[in-house]
């Protein structure tokens, strides 16, 4: 089995439009939450909104709206452009695969134009935009990726799964370069959806806190370039992917089981693949949405895996909001930054321990980090755990 390494990263989120900008916000405990300005909604929930309009993104990327391009693809293109240092082109696009995760793809355009498609022919390129594969297609077209292009949509674990599938393409020797990650933008659909479930907080979310009362939605695009270790040079390597596991909670369509069975199995699989014991993990970037249900279930799963010695852990969703399909890739990048900086990041807004709870990292601090676990859980019981390691 080939070893998979990360050799490039690009991100745009509510806390910055580059890896460096995101790191600065993480180090300064500076969150990206605000009231929605760009998203047209009557709601005033705090969100992690990227304050760049579609028109500004089109101009920056030298694209025109007539192409029928979605916000998720614009954000995705911007993030991947960072990987290739603004060149906009890949060196080897014929042999590069692309696996992208998204939960709702271009549904922002469907909800904006739902009543207009009939009368306005100019908007009809957006009819296909509703479906997740379209957003991926537009990103692939921009970079001239012509071979394997596919999309994973497993709700909030989509891009974590894209990273896992991309890694498998390399492990199995099918590709030596794969771009993986995900993109999701804020939409009325998801904001009202999470509101209908009554799990949106009207204040900044407090993951793992006794008084947590819901999540904040966010938007982001984050992508990584994965390569086979034997096909790249050492100085380009940022980290190694040592483990990945997916399991299903098989409990409820949207709620997690109290004992966190799916999460437990996913973490176990990732450790097994990495050939590691639980105590090898130095830091966990938790899913930690700030809902009653997730944080309880994840806490119980962590206690089952790590027993009495749960490593340093935090949820960084207090910075970015929950970026749904992009969250796994956003947090993969934060996990790798944690290895690079030898630093663990704060779980913002945490004050009080929940009953039988665990205490997350409250302030960012230096810490020896060789192996990071990153958890992502989604609707449909979908649970994924990834392990990133320092490359020696």
């Amino acid at each position, binding site marked *: 089995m080939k070893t998979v390494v990360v050799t490039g990263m690009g991100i745009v989120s509510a806390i910055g439009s580059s890896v460096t900008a995101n790191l600065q916000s993480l180090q300064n405990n500076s969150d990206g939450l605000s009231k929605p300005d760009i998203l047209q909604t009557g709601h005033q929930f705090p969100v992690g909104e990227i304050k760049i309009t579609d028109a500004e993104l089109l101009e920056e990327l030298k694209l025109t709206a007539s192409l029928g391009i979605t916000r998720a693809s614009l954000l995705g293109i911007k993030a991947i452009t960072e990987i290739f240092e603004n060149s906009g082109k890949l060196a080897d696009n014929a042999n590069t695969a692309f696996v992208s995760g998204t939960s709702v793809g271009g549904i922002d355009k469907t909800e904006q134009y739902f009543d207009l498609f009939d009368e306005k022919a100019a908007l009809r390129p957006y009819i296909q935009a509703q479906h*997740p594969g379209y957003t991926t297609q537009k990103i692939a077209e921009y970079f001239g990726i012509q071979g394997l292009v596919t999309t994973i949509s497993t709700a909030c674990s989509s891009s974590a799964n894209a990273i896992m599938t991309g890694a498998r393409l390399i492990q199995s020797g099918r590709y030596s370069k794969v771009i993986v990650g995900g993109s999701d933008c804020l939409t009325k659909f998801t904001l009202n959806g999470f509101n209908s479930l009554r799990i949106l907080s009207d204040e900044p979310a407090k993951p793992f806190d006794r008084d947590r009362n819901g999540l904040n939605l966010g938007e982001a695009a984050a992508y990584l370039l994965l390569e086979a270790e034997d096909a790249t040079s050492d100085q380009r390597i940022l980290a190694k992917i040592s483990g990945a596991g997916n399991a*299903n909670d098989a409990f409820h369509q949207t709620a997690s089981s109290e004992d966190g069975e799916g999460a437990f199995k996913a973490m176990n699989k990732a450790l097994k693949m990495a050939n590691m014991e639980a105590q090898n993990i130095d830091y966990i970037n938790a899913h930690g949405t700030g809902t009653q249900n997730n944080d309880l279930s994840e806490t119980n799963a962590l206690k089952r895996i790590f027993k009495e010695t749960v490593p340093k852990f935090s949820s960084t969703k207090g910075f970015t909001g929950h970026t749904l399909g992009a969250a796994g890739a956003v947090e993969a990048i934060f996990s790798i930054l944690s290895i690079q900086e030898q630093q663990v990041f704060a779980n913002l807004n945490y004050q009080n321990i929940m009953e039988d709870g665990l205490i997350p990292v409250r302030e960012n601090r230096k810490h020896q980090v060789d192996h990071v676990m990153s958890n992502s859980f989604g609707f449909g019981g979908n649970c994924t755990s990834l392990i990133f390691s320092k490359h020696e």
Partner: protein
Amino acid sequence: MYINGMSNISAQPDDFLTSAEIIDIQGNILSAVVRPYRELIKPMLLRRMSKAVKMGIYTAVKSLSRSGLECPDAILVGTGQGCMQDTEKFMQQIEESKEQLLTPTSFIQSTHNTVSGQIALFLKCNGYNMTYTQNSVSFESCLLDAQMQLELDEDIQNVLIGAVDETSEKFTGFQKLDGQIKAETILNKELFPSSSPGSIISESAAFFSISREKTPRSLANCVGSKIINEIQSSEIEEKVVEFLSEFDLKPEQMDAVVLGNNGDHRFDDYYQILQQGIFNNILQLNYKSLTGENNSISAIGCALAVSVLQHQKIPKKFRANSKSASKFRRILIYNQYLGRNHGFILLERP
């Protein structure tokens, strides 16, 4: 990897892969035939399920039981458009209520992995669970992943894999506006030859129970699959030859080819070039005049190929030319949609 059981639902009857009968359907949006879901799913559960979930669970469970399996080690589902009926319902509720507090039922069931999650819940399977949604190669993405799972994870012996797509009133209706659905209403069997853009859009589901090792129930061996996002029609022959050469095979070694012609005159040239070129002397099969087109339909094409390998005969209604073969050992399935998302699947007799 070996296909040991399968089940499908489309606009045609249960036995359409083997029967001579053709059901004529007038209209450009084809609903899937309703199956006796109650045989497998409790009425209380059924009431809450959208069509995609019903079709998915029904065919998933059928394909598993036909292979003699209860709970697979992995569940992989392809769906290009996902749970559109609930998505449409929830989007309309947002508009109508002006974003007031809504009931979450439709939102809960709108996510693209609802079918794969519901199958896991129904079967109580905690294993690997994945949903691919890449237009017309959603099913092929699952095949690729299944193959990698079996290669890389020794704990995985059996995989359930399938694809499902449903239609919904408004969203599917939009496809008339952008040329995906034919403007003129046609009788499905008159889909070919065509000189107009668009196709007839439909619902379908097909599931396959797959194992790493050959079993006495094995119907076909899936030797390989490939996805290519972008191909010019002038390159299609070269790409097919390239794919087959990965298995040391040549086009003339195919006993039949299952081609995805859908009557869209703008993009059927991909198939026609192959039909008049490298596959000129090979038996060619078409199926979309019976089932219609959708993002999961290549899984039905795959089921047709499995059925031919299993029964060693082909109903006349699928034949697109007059060539024949004495034995069916090897079949290629090729499909694309709107000139994009090209998928190749190679099956052999086990």
